[in-house]
């Protein structure tokens, strides 16, 4: 008789550590919430720095995590925690711009200091050109692009996080690429 190996957990029922932490944090477990913070804080900080510049990052990161903790009991777990968290962060950035009256032009000095392996001058120059083109995008388009490439969210997740229609998000995503492609093409 052939003895089949015992399957402890099916692939689709494999335990998800983040999901467990989210469930525990929803119930008020502070340690589980701390684990979520340590998991996402670095990339969240980078995302916020990219949007608002380096001066206000600490305050907005703090506000985001506070809002996250307070709203966690209402988190449906239907969506991905990361998408939900970045939705809060994006809203906090909008609040920040609203409080300041207008959004400053994203200067290259405000761009986050992202360590890059490429040390070649060409790669850095290319990144600067792209960041400059991105800085000239309308705010709504820039948000979508940042959430897609930096936060690695899908377009439906972005629509949910920003509470926008999916077709609107797709169009903004397309327009952003069209504009950046034109500018980069024109600048060489």
């Amino acid at each position: 008789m052939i003895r089949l190996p015992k399957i402890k957990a099916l692939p689709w029922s494999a335990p998800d550590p983040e999901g467990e932490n989210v469930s525990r944090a929803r119930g008020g477990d502070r340690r589980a919430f701390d684990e979520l913070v340590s998991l996402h804080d670095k990339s969240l900080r980078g995302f916020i720095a990219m949007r608002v510049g380096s001066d206000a990052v600490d305050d907005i990161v703090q506000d985001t995590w506070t809002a996250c903790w307070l709203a966690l009991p209402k988190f449906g777990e239907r969506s991905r925690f990361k998408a939900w968290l970045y939705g809060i962060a994006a809203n906090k950035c909008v609040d920040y711009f609203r409080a300041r009256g207008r959004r400053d032009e994203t200067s290259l000095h405000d761009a986050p200091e992202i360590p890059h392996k490429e040390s070649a001058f060409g790669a850095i120059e290319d990144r600067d050109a792209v960041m400059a083109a991105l800085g000239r995008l309308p705010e709504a388009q820039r948000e979508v692009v940042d959430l897609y490439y930096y936060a690695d969210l899908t377009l439906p997740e972005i629509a949910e996080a920003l509470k926008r229609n999916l077709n609107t998000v797709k169009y903004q995503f397309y327009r952003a690429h069209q504009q950046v492609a034109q500018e980069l093409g024109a600048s060489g």
Partner: protein
Amino acid sequence: MHKTCAQFESDLLLHGLGELPYWRSWNLSRHLRGCGRCRKVQAGMMAASGRMARALTPPGGRPRAPRPPVGVTQGWLMLACIVMLLAGSLFTVRIAATHYFGSSVNRPAQGDQPCAPGLPTDKCR
């Protein structure tokens, strides 16, 4: 019905990034096979997308890579599989119907006939 290039234009980027629904992606793949203009527009968009992905890479992470779109052959194969599955299902239903209900369908009518020794009818009871 064929879409014109202008109608496809907004889908070109999503197609290149593998973000279009399956059948729309396949439809556009078929269009791209024969349309050099759309291929050129898509290549420009994808080049910009690649540069944006590299510029917006999170610290310690990797640039977001596009998912492959649905290829022309892949779509035809999927269509063939669906047709075969439907045909198989219909065949199975037909066989099952014949096997389980066929005798009742073909049972000879006995409505007005009186009870006779050769007839399996309730009227004989």
